Each structure stands twice: as C-alpha cells, then as structure tokens.
C-alpha cells in the first residue's frame, strides 16, 4: 500500500491540461488500476498522469476522466470543482458532454463538501442497476488508517480507509447502498495522484464515531 498524500485546494499555475501521452497503452494501464481499485475496495493506486492545472481535482481523477470518458458519456460537475478551463479541457480531450442534470450523468465530479444527499444522481433500476452515476470524488486524504472499515466482495477480511474530514455525509450515503442494492452509487476517490474506490457492494462501518464499538452507518 502506498501512503496517501494531502492536497490543498488552491489553483496551481504553470500547468496545462494534458492528454495521455500514449492513449492506447496509458489508458489500458490506468483502466487496470481503476479496475483493481473497484475490485478490491479501499486499495490505493498511484496514478502516473501529469498533474492538471486545477490542483483540487488532482492527477488521479484527471487520469480517470481521460481513461473512461468519451462522446458517449455525460459528466456532472459540482460547483466547487467547476471551472471554464476544466469544461473546455474535458470537451477537448474526451468529447464528453457536460450535463446540469445529475440524474442524467454517467459520472459526477465532486468533493465530500459539495456532496449533498439530495442531489438526485442516477441509482439505476432493479432491472438495470448498472444505469447509475459513478461518483468521482476529490478528497483531501486517502490512507489505509482508521476512519472507515470496509468489508464485502474484494476484501478478504476488512480494510481501513480514511478519506479525510467532512466526509460523513458522503460515507453515510455510500453505506446506504447496502439497503438499495443492487441500485446505488459507486465512488472513485482521487487525492493528488492516489486513487481508491468504494463500489456499492461494500459494507461500511465507522471506526471512529462510536469508539471501539463502531456502529454501522445508516
């Protein structure tokens, strides 16, 4: 496991929105990392992509966008990550469409702070649970330390993950995936160049709120 890192949310100057240097091979390598992240929830993956000009977005999520998005995908962007240069770069490099309707979004770019349980992201239907919005969440910390205890598919016993302060509303929503399963939201986290994920199949308990006897978040 690589150690996590902390990113401060100011803009970085002198950087450009760059594409993948070798599209076919770089996107394959990045996809396998994203696949591993979702297959084994909470594992950390170092994404080797040039840092984008918008520091809070981070290299990992920029790499995920370049890998997964194209003309067939729609992206919703929360206000705290939205910027004309980001929209322009996404359109230019991926062809993806930006949507203002979260229920219509394949991917949503947000932070734990801009997450609101009332945003009507697509959860899929009982017959087609795959027709859901995947959250791409820029977080301030990604570390395998106490915070949230993950278990379920992809995890032999349990795995600890901390995604930073102010994440309780988001994690409470992701914990509620168990009740709505198979409908739900899958989340991919980026912190600088680090990437991790929590799919809807994961059971989530807090290890902090109730001390030693952590209760399930619901």
């Amino acid at each position, binding site marked *: 496991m690589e150690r996590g890192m902390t990113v401060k949310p100011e803009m970085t100057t002198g950087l450009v929105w760059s594409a993948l240097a070798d*599209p076919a091979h770089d996107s394959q390598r990045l*996809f396998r990392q994203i*696949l591993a992240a*979702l297959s*084994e929830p909470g594992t950390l993956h170092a994404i080797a992509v040039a840092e984008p000009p918008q520091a809070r977005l981070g290299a990992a999520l920029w790499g995920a966008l370049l*890998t*997964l998005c194209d003309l067939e995908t729609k992206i919703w962007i929360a206000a705290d990550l939205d910027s004309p240069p980001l929209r322009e770069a996404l359109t230019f490099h991926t062809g993806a469409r930006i949507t203002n309707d979260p229920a219509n979004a*394949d991917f949503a770019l947000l932070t734990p702070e801009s997450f609101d349980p009332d945003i009507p992201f697509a959860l899929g239907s009982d017959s087609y649970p795959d027709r859901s919005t995947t959250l791409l969440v820029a977080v301030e910390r990604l570390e395998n330390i106490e915070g949230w205890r993950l278990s379920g598919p992809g995890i032999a016993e349990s795995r600890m993950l901390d995604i930073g302060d102010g994440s309780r509303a988001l994690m409470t929503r992701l914990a509620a995936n168990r009740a709505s399963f198979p409908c739900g939201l899958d989340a991919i986290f980026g912190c600088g160049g680090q990437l991790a994920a929590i799919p809807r199949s994961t059971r989530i308990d807090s290890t902090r709120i109730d001390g030693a006897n952590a209760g399930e978040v619901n």
Partner: protein
Amino acid sequence: MNGYNFAYLDEQTKRMIRRALLKAVAIPGYQVPFGGREMPMPYGWGTGGVQVTASILGADDILKVIDQGADDTTNAVSIRHFFQRVAGVETTTSTATADVIQTRHRIPETPLRNGQILVFQVPIPEPLRFIEPSEQETRMMHALEEYGVMHVKLYEDIARYGHIATTYAYPVKVDGRYVMDPSPIPKFDNPKLDGNPALMLFGAGREKRLYAIPPYTRVESLDFEDHPFEVQTWEHTCALCGSDHSYLDEVITDDKGGRMFVCSDTDYCQTRRGEVA
C-alpha cells in the same frame, strides 16, 4: 501492427467495455449489457471472452489461454495466436506465470493468486433462460430475487435421478444476491469460485453480456439441506501424474477399447510430471 489497433478493438469500443466491466465488479454476479463488436471469429469461439481480454490486456501482460483445461486445442491456440498478433503479448502455458488467463470450460487446478485475472468465455449467460425465454422476464426475476424456479429445476433432478444431475454450468449465488451461470465449467470447479484471490470476468459475445466475481467474494452453489452440493469424484488417479485430486478426462488410448483417465488441466499434469522447467 498491420493496421490493427492495439489488441484489435478500437479505443472507443474498449472504453465502452471497460465502463461495463467496472459496473460488473461493483454489482457482483449481475449481467451488464454491453454494445459488443463483431470479432474476426465465429461466436462459438469465445468472442465474449476475447472482447473482455482485448479490453483489459496490456503490452506487459503474460497471457494464457485454455480450452477444457488444455493449452493446445485448436480454440486455445487460435485465440493465443490472435493476441500474439494484435497485441504482441508474451504467452505462457504456466498458470502460475500468467497475468491474464482466458478460459473455456475449466478453472485451473493450480490455485490462482491475487492480481491474476481469469476471463471466462460464456455461451449462455442467463441461468434462468431454460426456464424463461424472455429477457425482460428473467431481468424481472433477478430484480425480485425470484429464484424459486431454479430450486424447483434442481429438485426435479433429485425426484427423477435421486441426485442433482446437473454437472456443468451448475448455478451459483454470488455474495448472497445474484444467481449466476458460472459458464460450462464442471461443478468440480465451483468451489474454486468461492473466495478466490483472483478477479474473475465473464464475457458472452452473442448475447453481449458481461459479469464479474471480485476477489474474495462469497460464492455458493445452490443446493438443499437434504441434498447438499457435491463435486464429482473418481475411483481412478491420473494415469500420467498420479493426481488423486484433479478433474480427470477419460481418453481412448487405442482402437481395442483401451482407455485411461488423465488430468484435464494439461499444465497442472505436466508440472507434476516435472516436464516444465
């Protein structure tokens, strides 16, 4: 590479399949529809598995392809050659060495390790299809977890034969939720699906469906309290390596009715015989 994109598929098709694969691992055992492409081989040749492999394979991966446990059958050889040609990847017959293993009808005897990916070729992805021909209806049955019919089918076996007669494509329940067809592997291999450290991906080309079992996922074979799930056993051991615990094929040795039992997993058998350096 002779005008082909890396690994044959164009980048947009790969992205579409990759997005579907992420949904598949997030919803273990659920069949994700995908807009498959025509492949330069007939459907019976594992086009679903080939499309999955083409979408995940990297230049540094070492690929193994097996058919009924063997690396040297026509189907396995042609798929292996296809990826050598369109992706230039290194190939192997060794289960332990491979990063990606595409398979038809078997799970290798050598235990898989974390980090490996097993890609199954699936002819009919829907385990309820023989009961209900309508896709809309089977989707609804999965949505409502209406799996009673599956148990009725297995129980009819017991009533008729005194045991569950299904020996291939024996249905499983994944993480306590979706009933899934593990593809036509012998039920001997079903216990290997449970808690396996490797990622298992399933591709059906004709019906354009993908599904997945993440590593360390609970997978149970459907059964009954009074008729618990059992795997096949043999009175023989492998005539070549002496194994008393692998899946055996009966082979005819001459035209006078001579026959013997040998491991279906040729790499496993050869490794045991010390023929692989």
